[in-house]
């Protein structure tokens, strides 16, 4: 993802940053317009689409039965995959996932797994023999920056609206997927010495480095990942964590808690 960016544009974004402004007039702590739609793919057990500015991410959740891992015989399995679809950007190519895609998938997965978002014990059908496997497939439809936050949000929203198809397996009624936590990922970019949330594509291209923080509803951190080739100071890391937790709480309240009430 090394799109060539004009030095002029880089200077422009830097100069704006010094004045405390951003290209599209947002503040450093403002997200772009965010739209969350759920249950848009009826064939999937759960689905959600997030539109963040011009970024579009679609997540479909499929459930299948399978064998548990030998060391966690009474637990379901979570599998996350992320596709950088060639339709999303001229830079994306068809073929096996590149390291960016693998990294993003693993960050999304880590947030969901480590926060204990899914009650995986309830996905067990027969101990040691049969469990539900939750496939979270993230499709990037349009890349206008900050794919990770959109992916995290879409993934958790899709999971929250997922129905476990017990009837299909003849093991009782269909029930909503048991959720315990709502992790939200927030990515901060460092431009100059400033941190800002929800980078646009241009900001991502000129930024020195990014830090994604996935936090839970109790304000604790479930996963972190630094991406990009510059460094953070310790103070910046701590500041980023605070900013991320704050923004995550906002997003959770605005968009996700409504999904819980629906149930």
């Amino acid at each position, binding site marked *: 993802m090394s799109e060539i960016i004009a030095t002029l544009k880089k200077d422009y974004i830097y100069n704006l940053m010094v004045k405390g402004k951003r290209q599209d007039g947002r503040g450093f702590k403002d997200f772009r317009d965010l739209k969350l739609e759920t249950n848009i793919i009826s064939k999937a057990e759960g689905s959600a689409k997030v539109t963040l500015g011009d970024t579009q991410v679609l997540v479909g959740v*499929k459930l*299948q*039965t*399978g*064998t*548990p*891992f*030998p*060391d*966690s015989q009474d*637990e379901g*399995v*979570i*599998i*996350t*995959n992320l*596709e950088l679809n060639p339709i999303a950007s001229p830079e994306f190519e068809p*073929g*096996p*996932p590149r*390291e*960016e895609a*693998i*990294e993003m*998938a*693993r960050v999304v*997965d*880590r947030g969901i*797994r*480590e*926060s204990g978002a899914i009650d*995986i014990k309830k996905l067990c059908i027969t101990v040691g023999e049969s469990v539900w*496997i939750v*496939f979270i*497939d993230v499709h990037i439809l349009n890349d206008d920056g900050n794919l990770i936050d959109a992916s995290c949000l879409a993934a958790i929203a899709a999971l929250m609206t997922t129905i476990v198809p017990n009837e299909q397996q003849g093991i009782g009624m269909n029930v909503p997927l048991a959720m315990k936590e709502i992790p939200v990922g927030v990515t901060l970019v460092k431009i100059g010495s400033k941190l800002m949330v929800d980078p646009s594509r241009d900001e991502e291209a000129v930024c020195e*480095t990014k*830090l994604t923080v996935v936090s*839970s509803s109790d*304000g*604790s*951190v*479930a*996963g*972190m*990942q*630094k*991406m*990009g*080739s*510059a*460094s*953070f*100071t*310790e103070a*910046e*890391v*701590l500041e980023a*964590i*605070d900013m991320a*937790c704050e923004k995550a709480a906002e997003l959770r309240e605005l968009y996700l808690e409504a999904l819980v009430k629906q149930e």
Partner: protein
Amino acid sequence: MSDKPEKLITDDGLRLDGRRADEIRPMKIEIGVLSRADGSCYLEWGRNKILVGVFGPREAHPRRSQRADTAVIRYKYNMASFSVEDRSRPGPSRRSIEISKVSREAFEPVIMAELFPKTAIDIFVEVLQADAGTRTAAINASSVALADAGIPMKGLITSCAFGKVDGKIVLDLNKDEDNYGDADFPVAMTQDGEITLVQMDGHLTPEEIKEGLELVKKGCKEILEIQQAVLRKKFETPMEELAEEAAETSNTENEVVETGVPLEYASEVAVVEEVLKETKEFEDAVSEEISEAGAVTEVVPELDELEEIIKEAEAGIEEETIEEAIESEIEEEAEKEAEEEEADFEASFEASFEEVSEPDEVEELEPEEADFGEEETGFESEIEGFVEEEPQPAEELQVEEEAGIEEAASEETLESEPEVESEAESSEEAPAEEQVEAEEEPVEELEEEKCEGPWKVVKDPSESGSRGEKDE
């Protein structure tokens, strides 16, 4: 895998391996261990064993990967299939690709790549033995190897993880703590404390993270001192002295023995080496005598006879000794007589089978020596294995070059990850197939839980049931 210990931290604040919360595992670094690499480093950290080779700056292949304004830094983290409890499938996994990426980015701020446009700097990491914290160990080793290769850097990178175990923040998790702890937080930083790698999984509050970062700074400082000491030792030695040293230790076997001894047995090394030396000397002396005396095979039947004679004699001596001791109550005398007897006996059979009695002793010694021999060759083969694997990437690149087709690269990767295609296809086009897959996949997963199963793409060992890096 062992079951979860009841307590990971004892009541007196010590961890299972006896460390305090703020202590790192013992670390040993050697540099210049690979002759063909431009820079190399072997690092042991606790039970982790990491070998790093650095090549470059060298021409970047394929040429489309070249950059006109800077060198391309390539970092390949690879786990040997035997490095973990359950064999890991060779080749890149999703986990190793991610680690390679973040580790490369950890070095990009310090490597002065802009000095070498159009070149590549390759860092190849082989994890020979894994015991939690391999990515941090690999970064520490790579840092030293880069310096060994003479790559201009603004400073060394050091890396260390902290985590939460039994509710307590501790430095440098070991395997059990990683498996059963509550969080893992690897960090890499420059000498000035700029953070160049941050990853985290688990459950931590912002306050705990702050506390942990303080611990990590302390840990990194200690590691930096070890790294610097090793580099100083190599590069501060005057050239004449080095040449002398090289002449003295030209025997490469000695080097291998040194590196082959695990850190935890370091104190025993001296003793072992002494025994080895003595055995060798003795063996040489004996073999000379044997060769003088003639064929060894003839000795064998006679040896049995000899042993019987010795046993009889010994029994006799013992009986006599006891009897005499009881009768006269003078032990010394008894011993003397026994000794005399023995001496007589020895003299008599030495006279007849002079060269035979000694091979007997040699046989006793040999098994002991064989043990050390095995240990030695064990490591040797590890190293050899690595050295043989090493040139692979270069070969791949050559193939690409020759073919001159971009597809060569994608085909290659496709081959190694065929699951990508099948996964995507099945979920989009063939629901029937999907069903079949669903039944098949988990079975294979059982077999290769820690390897890359058919869901290489969607699932990898570190993401399975329990905590994060279970395969480290």
